[in-house]
């Protein structure tokens, strides 16, 4: 069964722009988006809401990163860039599937044993499938879809934290 995770989207060259952004949905091969070290992650994505002919390249990756008050750390376990070359007849040639109104693709990656997903207070470790779309206009758009590696419990606040 495939499951869809909630995306975190952003333009990477200047945030909060008013340009039309694509809707990217990713479905995972685990319903609860919960994986263990050594598992194989398989994901399928669909890019909708924009003209596929306006896309020049797609980067898909499986990464972990830290989030918190300090500098970010990042690790990449899978990365692939697909250049969508425009033919003279207007169609595009690539390993991703392109129809008139959307673009789809799939990826698979063997997950390492660590680092495990961690929901701390000062720092968090997140795993995600990241789809980055490059447009012919020069701008790009990133969509991240979180999944979980391992089962480290969520850190709870100390009992007197709300006082």
């Amino acid at each position: 069964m495939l499951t869809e995770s909630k995306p975190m989207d952003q333009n990477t060259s200047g945030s909060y722009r008013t340009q039309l952004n694509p809707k990217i949905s990713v479905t995972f091969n685990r319903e609860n988006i919960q994986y263990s070290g050594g598992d194989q992650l398989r994901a399928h994505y669909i890019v909708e809401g924009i003209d596929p002919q306006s896309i020049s390249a797609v980067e898909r990756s499986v990464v972990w990163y830290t989030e918190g008050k300090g500098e970010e750390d990042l690790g990449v376990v899978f990365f692939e860039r697909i250049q969508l070359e425009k033919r003279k007849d207007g169609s595009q040639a690539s390993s991703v599937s392109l129809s008139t109104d959307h673009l789809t693709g799939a990826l698979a990656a063997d997950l390492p044993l660590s680092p495990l997903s961690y929901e701390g207070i000062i720092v968090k470790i997140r795993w995600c499938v990241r789809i980055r779309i490059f447009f012919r206009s020069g701008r790009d758009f990133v969509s991240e879809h979180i999944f979980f590696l391992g089962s480290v419990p969520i850190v709870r606040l100390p009992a007197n934290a709300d006082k």
Partner: protein
Amino acid sequence: MSTLVFQNPFSTRFTRPGAIPWLSASTSLSSLLLRLCSIDNRAIICGPHGSGKSTILSHLVSIAKRQGLNVHCLRISSWLDVIGVIRLFSTIHPKQSLVAIDSWELLGFLGWFLCQIADFRGVCVILTVHEVPWWNRWPVLLHMEADAKTFHQLVHKLMAKSSRSKNIKFSRAMLHDVLQRNSGNFREAFFELYDHYERQSRIKTYAG
């Protein structure tokens, strides 16, 4: 295991230079680059800690790249970086390049020497400093000042990124206090809000 994600809109990845927007209605980024051309291609952005110097520099770099310029970004961490700057100033093509250097004041008086090289070669340079050094005659492109209105707007935009923010409210008075407590330093104020957000987000989740 729960699959809860406590995304905090005040974490570094959302507040680092380049991730937060340039909000000035009076000065556009493109007009700043045009002004840079009109003032001999070398200028300074100055302002106190956490006032947005690195943020504006990052946005200017993005625009310059989109305009086809060959952009070199440096962040000075000690005076030892002088060697890298000399090498860069001496080797790049002055007409098609822009050099963006953050934390220039860390070079001390060595900066004067580097400015002479840039002047001599006609290199296009933007520097960020806390205060303009007495020996530097390059014009100030922008003087950054942190103000409460911009801070409120940025907090609003950052919180709009996270779905959990619907349940979390920061009053204007509280934001005003946070900014004052951090002496107008946006970066430090965001870090304080990170803690507030984290606390409220978890309390509301577990209470609900």
